[in-house]
């Protein structure tokens, strides 16, 4: 199973700064800070290379996860609206 089928490329891609990237980037940073804390190093000033790497990995993962989530939502919307269009008798306006 592909991570994203080809038709997903017809959707607008998420911006580089997106909710998933920001959130996972922050969790990556928190993981690096926790690692510093547990290893009894200065929490913010130590292991900056590690902080940058963890933020990057989170950001990277967030981008692809958001892309996949947007594809899944678009696919569901397409199938739902297609069903509504094919069964107009079930979706009449109110006032009967």
């Amino acid at each position, binding site marked *: 199973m592909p991570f994203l089928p080809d038709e997903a490329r*017809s959707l607008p891609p998420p911006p580089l700064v997106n909710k998933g990237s920001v959130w996972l980037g922050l969790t990556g940073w928190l993981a690096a800070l926790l690692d510093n804390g547990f290893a009894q190093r200065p929490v913010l000033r130590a292991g900056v290379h590690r902080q940058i790497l963890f933020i990057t990995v989170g950001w990277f993962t967030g981008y692809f996860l958001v892309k996949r989530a947007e594809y899944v939502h678009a696919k569901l919307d397409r199938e739902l609206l297609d069903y509504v269009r094919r069964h107009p008798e079930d979706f009449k306006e109110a006032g009967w």
Partner: protein
Amino acid sequence: MAAPLRAAKWLRLAGGGPGLALTRSAFFARKRTYDQPNWFGVGLAFTTSAALWAFLFKQHNEDVMEYERRKQERHHKCTGCS
């Protein structure tokens, strides 16, 4: 039987572990020293970060180009040549 015991004793004395206590631990934990930066680790971390960012930028630009291209194609197909 004797040789591994002797080796274990030598390792125990050399590693600064629990000393001459008769333990049979398989490994020793050493306290990390932060006198010298771990330059290899630092270089690896920065290189990996740079590579990931470069790949991400490239992927995003490709995604945008492909989306715009398909949008043009769809517009062209639906409206015909105007």
